[in-house]
């Protein structure tokens, strides 16, 4: 996919939908360090929103607050109208937030199918006693889950050959895809992707960009991604939020962000504003 940077690729689904995720003055401090400073942020339903910013801007910390890995120091995180700030991660996942990780965190010595089945954990019921007895209910549930896991793997573009392969043996691109499949296993309504195209070549990135749009269009997901690849960001996002030093410095459509002086300054340093675009390489 080439960079049709100026327009949002899906004008039909504008950012006017109801907010599925909203943060109000969300703040995270580590000792004296303010990693996220009072961030107000809205993700409309069925939209694709990107979070960008230089390294160390607080993007992943912000993600970790959204998914419950960190408890916010102050502020509110509303998911589907409910304050989820400080809930344990598995509760937030059950409410419908799925995620992938910046540095792939698959279960390495589990097969692709097993990885997805773990993703489905909170949607399955089989308990201890019934699993030992392997009741007809558990049998049926496991059979259905297995079929669905395979379906998800196909949907994410993984071939049948990798179904029973340990995830550590998968190619890098396949591991990225498997992470998405595993996240989809929990049937999320909001999917958080942390640098999903890191390490991909341009062709793979373009394919992935298409896949993200497809996820929204076909599955009705809302997608929030952290991304460094400006081609991907500009190509797929309807809205972009820019963080720098833990603060939100800009928000808007891709075109607005590209023209924003503070963003250019954050990426390229002061004095660069007006002389270079956000996406081009800097030779300072």
């Amino acid at each position, binding site marked *: 996919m080439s960079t049709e940077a100026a327009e949002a690729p899906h004008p039909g689904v504008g950012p006017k939908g109801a907010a599925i995720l909203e943060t109000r003055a969300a703040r995270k401090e580590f000792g004296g360090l303010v990693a996220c400073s009072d961030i107000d942020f809205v993700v409309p339903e069925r939209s694709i929103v990107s979070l960008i910013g230089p390294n160390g801007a607080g993007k992943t910390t912000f993600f970790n607050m959204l998914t419950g*890995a960190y408890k916010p120091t102050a502020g509110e995180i509303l998911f589907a109208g409910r304050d989820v700030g400080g809930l344990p991660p598995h509760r937030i996942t059950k409410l419908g937030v799925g995620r992938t990780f910046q540095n792939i*965190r698959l*279960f390495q010595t*589990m097969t692709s199918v*097993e990885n997805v089945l*773990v993703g489905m954990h909170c949607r399955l019921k089989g308990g201890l006693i019934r699993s*030992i007895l392997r009741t007809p209910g558990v049998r049926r549930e*496991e059979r259905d889950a297995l079929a669905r896991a395979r379906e998800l793997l196909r949907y994410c573009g993984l071939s049948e050959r990798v179904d029973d392969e340990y995830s550590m043996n998968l190619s890098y691109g396949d591991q990225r895809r498997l992470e998405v499949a595993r996240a989809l296993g929990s049937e999320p309504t909001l999917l958080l992707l942390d640098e999903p195209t890191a390490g991909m070549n341009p062709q793979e990135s373009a394919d992935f960009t298409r896949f993200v749009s497809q996820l929204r269009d076909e599955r009705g997901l809302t997608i929030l991604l952290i991304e460094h690849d400006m081609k991907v960001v500009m190509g797929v996002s309807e809205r972009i939020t820019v963080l720098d030093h833990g603060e939100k410095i800009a928000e808007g459509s891709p075109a607005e962000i590209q023209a924003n002086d503070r963003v250019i300054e954050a990426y390229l340093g002061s004095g660069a504003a007006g002389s270079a675009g956000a996406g081009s390489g800097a030779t300072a």
Partner: protein
Amino acid sequence: MIDKLPIPRWARRAIIPIIIVPLVVLYPEYYTSLGTSQLIPTLSTAVTMTVFVCMAVGLNMVVGYAGLLDLGYVAFYAIGSYVAGWFASTQFASHSIVFGAVGVQSHAIGIHISIWLLLPVAAAMAAAAGVVIGLPTLRLRGDYLALVTLGFGEIIPQVVRNGDNMFGTGFNLTNGVAGITPIDPMGFRYLHGILPFLPDNFLLTPNLDVWFYRVGLLLVAITVFCSIRLRDSRLGRAWVALREDEIAAAAMGVPLMQVKTWAYASGAFFGGAAGCFYGVYQGGAIPDNFKLYISTLLLAMVILGGMGNVWGVCLGAAVLSYLNQQGLGAIGNTINSNFGTNIEITKYEAGLFGLLIVLMMLFRPQGLIPSSRRKAEFDVVKEEHEAAGVVVG
């Protein structure tokens, strides 16, 4: 090693059901014809082996599946034994309750409940203790968890050693260092009437070890069955996932505390049942049996056999408990009589087991029969080392 032999897959699958199971089940029938060497496991040793296999398979659920290092597993063994002691002896002499017990008068003092009922009760009480111990401690990770479990493994034997005067009230819960003895025997009190070949009291049979061995094998079979079913379940997957990566597991919707507590409780369950059975077999619950040494020995069995692989753990437990119970002494005696030496090899027992573990770690860190997951893990480490130019054994 076993996985390198050129045996076809179907034959390997058939080895356990067709060859090993009959050999094990029929052991009491043929072991006398194996000769008189003291190296041949006696039936008494064989009973002990079944007990340790049960406990090791239970511990494997905690350590091998869920990756929670537990150095205090002996606590559950102790709880199981004391449940047998409390409810099948004269310990609580102010009561007179007899229910299905074997070899006691109907108005005997003390509580006498059928051992068949006590086995699940002991297991459930050990599992409950596992939950109680687990809830505060399982928030810890790795080494910290190991240290706290080590503490509990020491606390419980101390409590039973000093439990003859609980909190200074004079209430005698555990009978102190003397332990609770004797414990009622086992037997098929009711089934004996219908099926006369089932003895009504094991103590009155010509060789009581035969029947204890059979019951021990039954416990092993149940433990192994449950262990495999759990491994292949939703819960078992969650255990592996949290062993691999807690953060990712939590983010995928696995409730860490709950799943860890289940692992701990399931492991404890089988430890409790085995402890109860062993208490009955030995005829008493004695504090000196519940030492830290048992916990480390059980862990060594799991590691030696192959963490995470039920069959490997069975083998590891059988080998080490044999050596511990009989083998080392017999080997020592054989050496002494053949070479005229005078080595008391059993004195070096702990050192020898330590050496065995060191050698295993050097030459076969994945265990005798590793699980395929562990094997994959170690293969990667090996490749990385080789790539870095490090020679691995």
